[in-house]
């Protein structure tokens, strides 16, 4: 229950929404799906700006870029053919893994998921390896690379309006591999590999687990780049994952266990990319 909530504004344009946020700073928040806010029982917020009327529920292709509006529901990302076709479907799969409950995915939005996630975000991780950007409206409109956005504490009164995913190079394959423990996701590895003449040209690998910000595994990326993309090389890369990935222990699993399973997650994701590559021949 939001016990002190007095008013919900429904702006019809982005400038209107920004003006409301500026005028009422302090106890005002943005709401789209609102599932996270209502779960937390916030007693401070007095006013909400509902941005679902801003027509930010879309997924478009434009000049090779994929643009996804901030209020696009997660379930739309799961189901839409566009998202299933994008990057071997990792955005769709990541959206599905975001919440076990379809009822929550029906209402939760992409923007809400990115702004409020505190740990294990498969969507963040997938968008990170796809080198997505987020577009923020407010003052000067600007775009931020996903890794910079991830490290920002707040948007300084701005509004996340869309996520932009760049076109993938030819022969680029992506995959994610989650690891579950008693039905709950423990960690998830996301990879994107670009090949040329069966050699790895570009590798982007990240694991999301206990932290809000997924860990990029730069050492493995450097190890893979320039090498033939074979099961033997993948095995060595996965060994390195367990060394480079530094999680924390929590009530679900110890740090050591997470490190151990990171090996199989990275290996599985890389092998899926190899499968995609072989079936594309």
């Amino acid at each position: 229950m939001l016990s002190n909530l007095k008013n919900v504004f429904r702006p019809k344009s982005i400038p209107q929404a920004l003006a409301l946020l500026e005028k009422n700073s302090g106890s005002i928040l943005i709401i789209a799906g609102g599932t996270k806010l209502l779960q937390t029982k916030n007693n401070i917020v007095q006013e909400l700006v509902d941005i679902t009327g801003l027509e930010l529920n879309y997924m478009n292709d434009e000049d090779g870029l994929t643009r996804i509006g901030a209020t696009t529901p997660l379930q739309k990302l799961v189901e839409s053919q566009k998202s299933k076709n994008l990057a071997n479907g990792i955005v769709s799969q990541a959206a599905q893994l975001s919440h076990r409950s379809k009822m929550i995915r029906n209402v939760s939005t992409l923007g809400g998921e990115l702004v409020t996630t505190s740990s294990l975000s498969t969507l963040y991780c997938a968008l990170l390896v796809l080198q997505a950007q987020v577009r923020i409206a407010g003052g000067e409109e600007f775009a931020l690379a996903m890794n910079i956005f991830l490290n920002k504490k707040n948007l300084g009164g701005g509004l996340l309006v869309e996520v932009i995913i760049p076109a993938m190079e030819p022969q680029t394959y992506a995959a994610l591999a989650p690891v579950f423990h008693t039905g709950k996701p423990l960690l998830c590895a996301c990879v994107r590999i670009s090949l040329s003449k069966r050699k790895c040209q570009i590798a982007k690998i990240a694991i999301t687990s206990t932290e809000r910000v997924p860990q990029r595994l730069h050492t493995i990326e450097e190890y893979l780049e320039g090498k033939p993309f074979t099961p033997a090389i993948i095995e060595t890369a996965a060994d390195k994952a367990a060394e480079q990935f530094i999680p924390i222990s929590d009530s679900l699993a110890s740090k050591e266990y997470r490190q151990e399973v990171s090996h199989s997650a990275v290996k599985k994701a890389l092998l899926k990319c190899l499968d995609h590559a072989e079936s594309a021949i």
Partner: protein
Amino acid sequence: MKISLTINNRKKTLDVPANQTLMDLLRAQGLWSVKHGCETGDCGNCTVIAGGLAVNSCIMLAVQANGKAITTFEGVREKSGFSPVKETLMDFGDSDCGFCIPGMLMSMKALLDKISDPTEEELVDALAGNLCRCTQSVKPVQAILEAIKKIQGKW
């Protein structure tokens, strides 16, 4: 705040407090099938259909339902096609207390409204947010799968 919505095919204009949840609004209208469980979106006992989608009404504000068509279990129980579902649930002896059943059936209805012949995987996914404390959800899911076969798209 003034909102206009349709509840079980009846148009309504209501004055609601900004912080009232859709679950509280519906229960205040006497729609007791909307069960008050966890209030955190974890159990699915409060599931209703809003704008064609199954939602947790406990984590949605009533003002967010403005302009939407809301369906609760009261709105479907008299529908033809429901009897075989009810019989199958009874045959399977699927429920103890029955608290979870209206929410599960609303998730099932939202799925069947879109896909008349869902796969087991689609049904399990649709019901993943509906928890049954008594039976661990195994029996209700089996019963609903069986019921879907019986009604064969006549829902």
